[in-house]
């Protein structure tokens, strides 16, 4: 038998081992799809229907006009109109409203005569991100109200306006940020599961010893164990790419080959990690534990949900060893920024380097484990 016949035989055997079991087939397809749907819809930082209350002590034409602007906004939903100041505390404490707009008396006259009418905005800061975003919306509404007032009266208004445009994601939808990342996340989960358990399973069943007494050398073994993970990873990744584009409607602006080169290197680096875990683990359970221990930091320290730039310096350095970090750059640049290969060379190179190191280490560990 030549080397390649042996390798192909091993690959076929691996596929059979993975796909023969009905339960295993289901866990490869079912949970990822469910996760995609839940992640895709639940993971959002956008504000919708923020509950708010109004405490208007002026009830003048101007105050009503100002408040009407909130009622028309999608981001807000009015749930209460207050009569007393002490009601504010109770509503915010019990989270019935996120913010209260408090218009003090003499709002209209101060607005028209003195030109500085204060409006108090009380915000529940328990979730500081939501609080900041809501405050931004209020700011925008207030600015446009002021401008409109000035125009109506033929006044000069503020000297300069701020005109903000967003590149790549004009409506600033979180979904466009999160969903392409899920392509990487689920490819990682599936590939890691397939590979982290592959050698451990053989070891539990005692068939790994049998493999070692065949004429296969560690390199052939490595290729045989890598290819099934790669095929499954690319297959699963492709399904999610299709769903991202056609179900979630996220634009795919860049080149598909650039995406696939990234996916290939990323899968290889994850397979390397998976096989390393697998060759250390004595049982499938240890393999699972190892996969979990790798996955949690890999997801958290990747920029998947929160930016790497917000982490402490040292932790940021640590993320340089994380292949998922590079792949997230690739998917987001290709999907949204329309990047081609030339902008992604650094990311390719880093993932390839991690892949080579981990695969090589895994192969070394097969051999060490023979004794």
């Amino acid at each position, binding site marked *: 038998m030549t080397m390649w016949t042996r390798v192909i035989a091993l690959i076929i055997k691996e596929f059979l081992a993975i796909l023969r079991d009905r339960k295993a087939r289901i*866990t490869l397809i079912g949970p990822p799809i469910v*996760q995609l749907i*839940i992640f895709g819809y*639940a*993971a*959002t930082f*956008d*504000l919708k229907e923020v*509950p708010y209350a109004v405490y208007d002590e002026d009830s003048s034409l101007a105050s009503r006009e100002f408040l009407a602007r909130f009622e028309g906004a999608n981001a807000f939903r009015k749930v209460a109109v207050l009569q007393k100041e002490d009601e504010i505390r109770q509503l915010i*404490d019990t989270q019935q409203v996120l913010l209260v707009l408090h218009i003090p008396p003499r709002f209209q006259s101060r607005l028209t005569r003195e*030109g*500085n009418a*204060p*409006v*108090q*905005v*009380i*915000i529940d*800061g*328990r*979730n*500081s*991100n939501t609080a*900041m*975003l809501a405050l*931004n919306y*209020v*700011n925008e509404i*207030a*600015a446009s*109200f*002021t401008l409109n007032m*000035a125009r109506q009266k033929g006044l*000069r208004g*503020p*000297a*300069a*306006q*701020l*005109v*903000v*445009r*967003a*590149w*790549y*994601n004009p409506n*600033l*939808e*979180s979904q466009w940020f999160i969903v392409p990342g899920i392509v990487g996340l689920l490819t990682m989960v599936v590939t890691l599961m397939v590979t982290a358990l592959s050698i451990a399973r053989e070891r539990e069943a005692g068939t790994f010893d049998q493999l070692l007494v065949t004429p296969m050398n560690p390199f052939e073994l490595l290729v045989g164990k890598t290819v099934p993970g790669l095929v499954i990873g690319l297959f699963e990744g492709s399904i999610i790419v299709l769903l991202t584009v056609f179900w979630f409607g996220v634009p795919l602006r860049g080149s598909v080959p650039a995406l696939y080169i990234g996916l290939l290197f990323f899968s290889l680096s994850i397979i390397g990690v998976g096989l390393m875990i697998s060759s250390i683990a004595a049982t499938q*359970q240890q393999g*699972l534990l190892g996969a979990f221990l790798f996955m949690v930091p890999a997801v*958290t*320290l990747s920029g998947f*949900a929160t930016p790497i730039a*917000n*982490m402490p310096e040292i*932790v940021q350095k640590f993320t340089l060893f994380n292949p998922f970090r590079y792949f997230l*750059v690739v998917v*987001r640049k290709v999907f949204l920024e329309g990047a081609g290969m030339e*902008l992604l060379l650094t990311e390719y190179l880093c993932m390839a380097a991690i892949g080579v190191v981990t695969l090589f280490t895994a192969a070394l560990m097969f051999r060490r484990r023979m004794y």
Partner: protein
Amino acid sequence: MSPALRRICALVRKEFLQVIRDPSSIAIAIVQPLFLLFIFGYGISLDATHVPVACVVDATGLNAREFIGGLYQSQYFSPRIYGSMAEAEQAMIKGDAMATIWIRSDFERQAMTGNGKIEVIVNGVDANTARLVQGYLIGHWGQWLLKQGAAMGLELKPRIWFNAEVRSRNYLLPGIIAVIMTLTGTLLTAMVVAREWERGTMEALLSTPVTISEVIVGKVIPYFLLGMAGMGLSVLTARWLFQVPLVGSHWLLLAVSCLYMLAALAMGLFISSFSKNQFIAGQLAIITTYLPAFMLSGFIFDIHSMPTVIQWLTHIIPARYFVTILQTLFLAGDVHGLVIKNAVYMAGLAAFFLLLVARNSRKRLD
């Protein structure tokens, strides 16, 4: 001592001995929460500071310079001047700048008539950070206008309650504790019971006079204590290492944590009642309790913003109530109405799972 009580005591003692001899339970209860707390505590943050901003100033006047100069004073921005828009755009494409501020050469003249424009382009890929940056810039612009002596017309006076420094870690860490305790509690019982089945010791146990409810009580007591030790450590770490304020009462915190630990242990027992294999039990615990606690509890993604169907779904997730309680106790204090309401839901779910466990696990060998 009644025979039932004596048997339970014996079971608890046996369980404690097992915990001491096989440290894997200690790893789940103590090491894992600390590990996750470190990773999440340092890794998850929504506070964008020192955002790299490219500035292109074609105007020569004082006003424009003042606007840009102010950016250097702010902790939110780290501005850099570029000679032309083309260079700035290159920096944006390469990812060296998150936003570009452009002030054109006719700025001063236009500003005289109230038509001045400060143009901002943000990279919208990371929508949340983009919104925050936009908000910071609006704030900066307002300050600048005030300095110009402009009559603002309407003056917003924001007051952010409970988290005046607007530090995201303050609300994320209590949520993280809830997520971690979900995983710890469920894994503890799910794995331990599955292990007894795998090793065949459950059969041995069942051939003795103990009843199934005694077995359950005997499991819950030691792992409850172990889980609470992990919880206590996590709270201490959040309080002293991550400097999260704890405004509410410690006793109330202890009481609701006990309740939640019971719910989590019950979920674990429920999982183990239909999977007698540690491997599958572990996977089920992660998929059915940990992931929902992470995604659907409101600890990072606001529940209000989710589609209605998913909002309904969050009601059957115990972590949702615990996250609300913890965020309130840590940051807002003892809001009794809110805490009790959520605690009642939590207790209801705990009772529901315990009932399911009692129904599902009879003394039988299948």
